[in-house]
């Protein structure tokens, strides 16, 4: 669970949204470790199209922050080379949908360098990319394709849900000897806010996090869907239903024990994600439960997801994105079973 913060720590805390927490993490680690460099499209003077790197070019200069030619494959592929030279690159891909242009560099190259070289070379780098809908972006800017990378053994795929986690997980990711795909919730960039320590801290990115305790039904999510789960938990509580909410934080590797424990708590499970149903990462979570927590299950495992279709243009997106009512309805269904 996100640590409670004592009174004496408050002076060292700031109210931040996700973007600010990410920027704070980048600035903190760049100041602490001069091997850390940033590269991506428009990350320099412009500060990134979402301003995630705002001010860092001014502060750290053109030997630490690099605007790149428009080629995602080269951003990721050169980041791998930069890592091998001894630097700690943090690459930004403007939208996760465009990481597909670098798929052949991420999955069979970055993820495998350690394995291929039997440990001689580590691809210690971070690829940051926002994903998810709800902010009326153009086509392909919103696709929740995080699961397409979840078969890439050797890569870590993590997705923070709140500013506290965003900063801590990003610091952990930059220090991680293994490559990390750091998926940021586009929707939460400005909307999700919270208290964040101003100093450096890390979070064990591989551990799922109980963000709300409950005993009736377990809601499992990551990234922006955690916020949805929490809102659904609020709604359920007005009906006297206490939802247990688990933020898995990491898709790859998956904290199997964390998922099993959270499921066993209630025996009823709703998994929530922004991607379409078929072959979304909810499938892996459900499959894991259906074996490793089978005997605790009291009801079918529900998945509340986008429908099986491409992400639509903006005027239709509110129909597409899973909402509180659907989560609540699914939770109720699991409870109808005796």
């Amino acid at each position: 669970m996100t640590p409670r913060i004592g009174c004496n720590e408050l002076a060292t805390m700031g109210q931040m949204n996700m973007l600010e927490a990410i920027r704070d993490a980048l600035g903190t680690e760049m100041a602490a470790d001069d091997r850390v460099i940033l590269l991506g499209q428009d990350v320099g003077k412009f500060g990134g199209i979402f301003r995630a790197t705002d001010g860092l070019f001014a502060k750290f200069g053109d030997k630490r922050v690099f605007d790149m030619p428009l080629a995602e494959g080269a951003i990721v592929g050169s980041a791998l080379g930069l890592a091998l030279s001894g630097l700690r690159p943090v690459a930004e891909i403007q939208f996760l949908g465009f990481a597909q242009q670098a798929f052949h560099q991420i999955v069979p190259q970055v993820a495998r360098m350690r394995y291929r070289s039997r440990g001689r070379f580590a691809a210690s780098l971070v690829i940051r990319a926002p994903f998810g809908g709800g902010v009326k972006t153009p086509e392909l800017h919103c696709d929740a394709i995080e699961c397409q990378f979840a078969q890439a053994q050797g890569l870590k795929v993590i997705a923070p849900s709140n500013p506290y986690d965003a900063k801590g997980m990003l610091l952990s990711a930059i220090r991680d000897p293994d490559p990390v795909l750091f998926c940021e919730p586009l929707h939460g960039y400005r909307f999700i806010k919270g208290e964040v320590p101003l100093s450096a801290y890390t979070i064990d990115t591989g551990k799922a996090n109980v963000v709300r305790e409950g005993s009736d039904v377990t809601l499992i999510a990551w990234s922006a869907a955690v916020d949805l789960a929490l809102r659904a938990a609020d709604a359920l509580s007005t009906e006297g239903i206490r939802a247990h909410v688990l933020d898995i934080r990491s898709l790859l590797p998956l904290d199997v024990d964390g998922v099993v424990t959270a499921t066993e708590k209630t025996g009823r499970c709703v998994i929530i994600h922004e991607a379409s149903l078929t072959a979304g990462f909810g499938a892996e979570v459900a499959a894991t439960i259906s074996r490793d927590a089978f005997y605790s299950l009291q009801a079918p495992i529900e998945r509340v997801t986008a429908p099986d279709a491409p992400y639509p243009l903006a005027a239709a997106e509110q129909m597409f994105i899973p909402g509180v009512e659907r989560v609540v309805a699914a939770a109720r269904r699991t409870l109808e079973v005796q």
Partner: protein
Amino acid sequence: MGNPSTPQFLYHNDPVVPLRLLEPDGTLAEGSVSPMDDEQVLRALRLMMLSRAFDAKGISLQRQGRFGTFSPVQGQEASVVGSAFALDPSRDWIVPQYRELPALLHHGLPLENFILYFNGHPAGGHIPEGVRLLPIQISLAAQLPHAVGLAWGLRLQEIDGVVLTYFGDGASSEGDFHEACNLAGVVKAPVVFFLQNNGWAISTPRSRQSAARTFAERAPGYGFDGIVVDGNDLLAVYAVTLAAVERACAGMGPTLIESQTYRLGAHNTADDPTRYVSQEALNAWSDRDPILRVQRYLSAHGCWSDRTASEFRDDISRTIDEALATARAVPPPTAEDLFEHTYAELTQRQARQLREHAL
């Protein structure tokens, strides 16, 4: 085209000096003859002005929350319109990026479709039957191999037609550019690669995009010709594109045209270019405004007056208002719209999800 302004292709020409027929002051460059007659130029000008007016309207509607994010053409009207005019909409295809509104209109796309698209209405993606246009491409450079395949397919089936594909200086850095050009050279596809070098990819300047002196110099590496043209010169763009189209029709394969122009506005309506574009650069390029240049040219011919200007403006604003009204009348999207056209038929799961959605 047997006139003194026949474009010279790269192998025979200085690759760095762009071809120009019309000077910024509206006079023809020395020894040049216009490749378009005045009536054509007037029609092109109307489209350029329509584009400029739509940019202004779209930006103002967007500020009021009544229109989505879109990328204005401002500054690039000669580049887009001159190239589109070199095509035959009943024979040739356009494979666009996203910043080419007047070309799409000229080729047959109803303005209301474009409005619907940037308003995020699913129906906006539709391209009417018979209009030889692929959908707007958001994934940069991904359209280039499609253009090559389409052109090659026409050739294999002995169907007349050339494919012109638009893309930016930024998009030219993607691997797809290379793979598409190389394939086009090998199969001699009747395709025109029309690279709009507008100086920027969002905030990234041309100088950071590539160390090449010109993008056109890449063409020999694929076995075909490249040429640099003044992209703010309607006549030169038209002439160069027409020559490339004719070469393609004659079985001479692809051409890479680098149209050197300038994005006078923001990248899109979410962008704030004052963060990275200097006022000097803007001023320098504003002096080379492609619309003014054409108006000066026509004035000198006695074909442009304050009266024509105001007639044009009225006509254009009527066109835009009508399209906006038509778009506004389209009913909002439904749950069916979410699923339809994913496949030719709904899948089992989709049918079930649609039923659940309807509940």
